[in-house]
């Protein structure tokens, strides 16, 4: 049997508390609460008493038929976490995956720790705690069997959901022991023994996606699929210039359209990640509401950012590069003196555009104000905790009056870290006094993203007569106010090649920005990698060195910092040894330097360290004489520690990140004119890149035939995989293009770069 999910019901389900009470009173099974709770609280619950305050988390339920239900606590956005976290519990509980059912948790910070999908954090933060939950359950079942058989626990073993006493040839299923186990005092979670990795029977296996069958048969499991009684549909028209207010709107005309029940102005706030100003239209049918929207005429008030544009951003960066930087965030040795002694000096400017997350499921949320004043929400948020706070502050209610059901999300990529749709749906539902499902149009989604910010870099590098990089300077023209970077437009003093060049200066100048920005898969790294790794390739060329060997040689000579690192920086420092490990493996598996390639075909390499993960990637690409790029093959090598918990999904995440980056490189760009985003929908399938009015995602025709994924296993604890595979791809592709054509690509997307050759 395949494990299945039980998605949050579209009809009112018993509350978790009722559920706990029912389970406990029925007395038919074992409920095991969270590691976050004190042991006394655990005892109260598993002792069979009705659940009292405070509410407890519950991860494991075992029924007499030996079915083990495990709660998946985190938001599922396609990264496979609904499968992976329960695997950790099931492993230590020592059950057969075939007897496991998965239930998606609602959001409840009193029961579940850190219900978040972001920063590739779920693996490192749950690797031990979720296993302890399983191990504690196993210990209680063992104790129950020991008592029942009057034998010491040390004589018992378990396998696949059965306890054995070999000496007396007795055995009992977990299901038959569950009621007795519920009366056992739970062990202390921080000392409960965990399996030796050699004993793993689930971790490391290719476990199928928990919701697979539901997806393949079209079950209504996504946020956009939610239905609640008397549900109305809403659209919310926001100002194209961010946070501009509504001056006037022809609400009477809109209200008279068929199917429309409400239309009203929302004053909104200035929070670009909160409730913005706009016009809400509510009706009995989403399509009707869109038809009515076509009749809407809004006059938007003037706004200070209505003059900002991509052209002006680029002009400002040029100004910055011609002037002294606003500030210096790292200064090792003496760059100015060292560059004068260099045998060769390289200078280059790199730039990359704003881009959109473009989740395929548009932003949406369903909200209902209940009779008791609570706001109940069905959401795809990656940060339900943040969403709850935003909704509470928007409505002026307490956080515990916001009830959230976590629905499967049709992609995240960082977009759903931001919760504007929740604030909008909650506010509209309260104003209209009906439950509403708010769905953004694709155009809403495209123009009102929390965009990956663009950026501009001016680099100067100097190599000595031995081909060693002795001087390096980066002037980063980015966005922010005062010393505060715009979200995701930042850089830190440990950005490679910092730490590995004796004379190095990192300068920053910032211009103000009135565009919402935010984290996109591998935030900062997804952009900085293109610029920094690209320029390092240029330095390798100047040095006359092989791009892989040049990097390895640098990594072997660390320079002590002039300013000591903060404890946080120290804890997050890239390990040169681990990067060298993946670089060497990438060289080996790709046959780097051993293949003779025809003219127009090249190989490139890059590495990157982000989100605790180490990746090196090699790309082989062919550029036609007309300048069309085709990726022939990619080799990706990752070091994310000692275990690949679910190789099935880990491989998917790497291949997805690689292809995602290719899509960015080929043709993704959001531009701004007169304060607003120019692009409105996806580019047609007949095109290969976006343009002045469309945004492109990679299509199957552009996907390479093979993306090889290799794991460099190390002794470090496992870390996340959703993000770190992305950053190396773009600079590796640019290296391949350079080898194929002799052209350096210093601007993205590729659709704006002439790559013709003869």
């Amino acid at each position, binding site marked *: 049997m395949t494990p299945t999910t039980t998605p949050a019901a579209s009809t009112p389900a018993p509350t978790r508390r009722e559920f706990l009470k029912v389970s406990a009173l029925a007395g038919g099974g074992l409920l095991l609460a969270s590691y976050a709770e004190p042991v006394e609280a655990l005892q109260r619950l598993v002792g069979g008493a009705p659940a009292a305050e405070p509410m407890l988390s519950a991860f494991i339920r075992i029924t007499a038929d030996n079915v083990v239900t495990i709660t998946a606590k985190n938001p599922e956005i396609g990264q496979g976490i609904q499968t992976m976290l329960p695997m950790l519990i099931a492993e230590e509980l020592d059950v057969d995956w075939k007897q496991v059912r998965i239930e998606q948790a609602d959001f409840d910070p009193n029961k579940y720790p850190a219900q978040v999908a972001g920063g590739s954090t779920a693996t490192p933060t749950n690797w031990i705690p979720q296993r302890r939950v399983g191990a504690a359950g196993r210990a209680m079942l063992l104790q129950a069997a020991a008592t029942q058989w009057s034998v010491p626990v040390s004589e018992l073993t378990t396998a696949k959901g059965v306890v054995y006493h070999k000496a007396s040839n007795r055995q009992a299923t977990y299901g038959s022991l569950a009621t007795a186990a519920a009366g056992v005092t739970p062990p202390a979670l921080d000392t409960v023994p965990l399996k030796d990795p050699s004993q793993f029977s689930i971790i490391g296996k290719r476990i199928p996606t928990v919701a697979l069958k539901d*997806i393949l048969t079209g079950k209504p499991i996504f946020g956009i699929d939610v239905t609640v009684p008397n549900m109305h549909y809403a659209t919310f028209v926001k100002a194209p210039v961010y946070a501009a207010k509504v001056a006037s709107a022809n609400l009477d005309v809109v209200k008279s359209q068929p199917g429309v029940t409400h239309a009203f102005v929302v004053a909104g706030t200035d929070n670009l990640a909160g409730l913005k100003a706009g016009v809400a239209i509510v009706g009995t049918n989403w399509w009707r509401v869109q038809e009515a929207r076509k009749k809407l005429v809004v006059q938007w008030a003037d706004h200070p950012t209505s003059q900002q544009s991509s052209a002006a951003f680029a002009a400002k960066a040029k100004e910055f590069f011609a002037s002294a930087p606003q500030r210096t965030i790292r200064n090792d040795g003496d760059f100015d003196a060292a560059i004068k002694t260099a045998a060769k000096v390289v200078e280059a400017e790199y730039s990359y555009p704003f881009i959109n997350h473009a989740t395929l499921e548009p932003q949406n949320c369903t909200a209902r104000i209940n009779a008791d004043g609570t706001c109940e929400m069905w959401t795809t948020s990656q940060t339900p905790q943040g969403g709850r706070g935003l909704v509470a502050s928007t409505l002026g209610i307490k956080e515990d009056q916001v009830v959230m059901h976590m629905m499967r999300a049709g*992609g995240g*990529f960082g977009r759903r870290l931001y919760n504007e749709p929740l604030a909008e749906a909650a506010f509209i539902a309260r104003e209209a006094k009906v439950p509403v499902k708010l769905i953004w149009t694709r155009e809403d989604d495209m123009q009102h993203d929390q965009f990956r910010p663009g950026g501009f870099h001016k680099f100067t590098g100097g190599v000595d007569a031995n081909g060693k990089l002795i001087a390096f300077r980066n002037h980063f023209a980015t966005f922010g106010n005062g010393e505060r970077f715009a979200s995701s437009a930042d850089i830190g003093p440990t950005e490679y090649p910092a730490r590995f060049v004796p004379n190095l200066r990192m300068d920053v100048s910032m211009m103000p920005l009135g565009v919402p920005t935010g984290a996109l898969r591998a935030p900062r790294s997804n952009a900085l990698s293109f610029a920094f790794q690209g320029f390092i390739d240029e330095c390798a060329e100047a040095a006359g060195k092989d791009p892989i060997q040049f990097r390895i040689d640098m990594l072997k000579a660390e320079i002590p910092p002039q300013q000591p690192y903060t404890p946080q920086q120290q804890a997050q420092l890239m390990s040169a040894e681990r990067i060298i490990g993946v670089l060497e493996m990438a060289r080996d598996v790709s046959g780097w330097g051993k293949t003779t390639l025809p003219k127009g075909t090249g190989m490139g390499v890059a590495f990157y360290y982000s989100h605790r993960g180490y990746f090196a990637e090699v790309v082989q690409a062919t550029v036609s004489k007309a300048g069309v790029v085709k990726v022939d093959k990619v080799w990706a090598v990752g070091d994310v520690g000692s275990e690949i918990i679910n190789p099935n999904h880990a491989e998917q995440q790497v291949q997805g990140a690689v292809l995602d980056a290719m899509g960015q490189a080929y043709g993704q760009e959001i531009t701004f004119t007169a304060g607003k985003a120019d692009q409105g929908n996806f580019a047609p399938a007949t095109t290969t890149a976006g343009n002045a009015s469309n945004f492109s*995602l990679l299509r199957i025709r552009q996907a390479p035939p093979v993306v090889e994924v290799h794991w460099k296993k190390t002794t470090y604890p496992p870390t996340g995989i959703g993000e770190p595979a992305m950053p190396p791809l773009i600079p590796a592709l640019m290296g391949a293009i350079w080898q194929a054509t002799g052209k350096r690509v210093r601007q993205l997307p590729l659709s704006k770069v002439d790559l013709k050759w003869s």
Partner: protein
Amino acid sequence: MPITLKVNGTSRTVDVPPEMPLLWVLRDELDLKGTKFGCGANRCGACTVHINGVAQRTCTLPVSRAAGADITTIEGLDPNGAHAVQKAWEELDVPQCGYCQAGQMMAAAGLLAKTPKPTDADIDTALNTNLCRCATYLRIRAAVHRAAEIKAGGAAVGSSGAPGED
């Protein structure tokens, strides 16, 4: 105006404006939520269904143009997931987020109905109109080939859905 549709083998009558797109009739009038909204502009393919056996997009298609036609949605491809395409998708565990996959599978089933043994190029041409934001394209390609094998009588490789379980 009442319009009668034949959806997944069942006759259904809806009272909607004739210009209402079939997608929204399926999702909100007939409660068939498997067909997805992605763009509203025929650009992403998330809304792909079969109309008289041909894969077509529905987000801009007026419902009146589908009246009387045989419409198959993902819910009707095979409700138990036993269609060759669903079985292949399960074997290879194709989805990441899964949002586009109904459209991908309908497009793939449409391709296989016309081209029983497609090449990579055939697959890329037929499915180029279907965006996958998670970029599961490598497994999609492999799964279409596998579905062709299953259709031609190849045995399914277990039912666990785990590719190469070890």
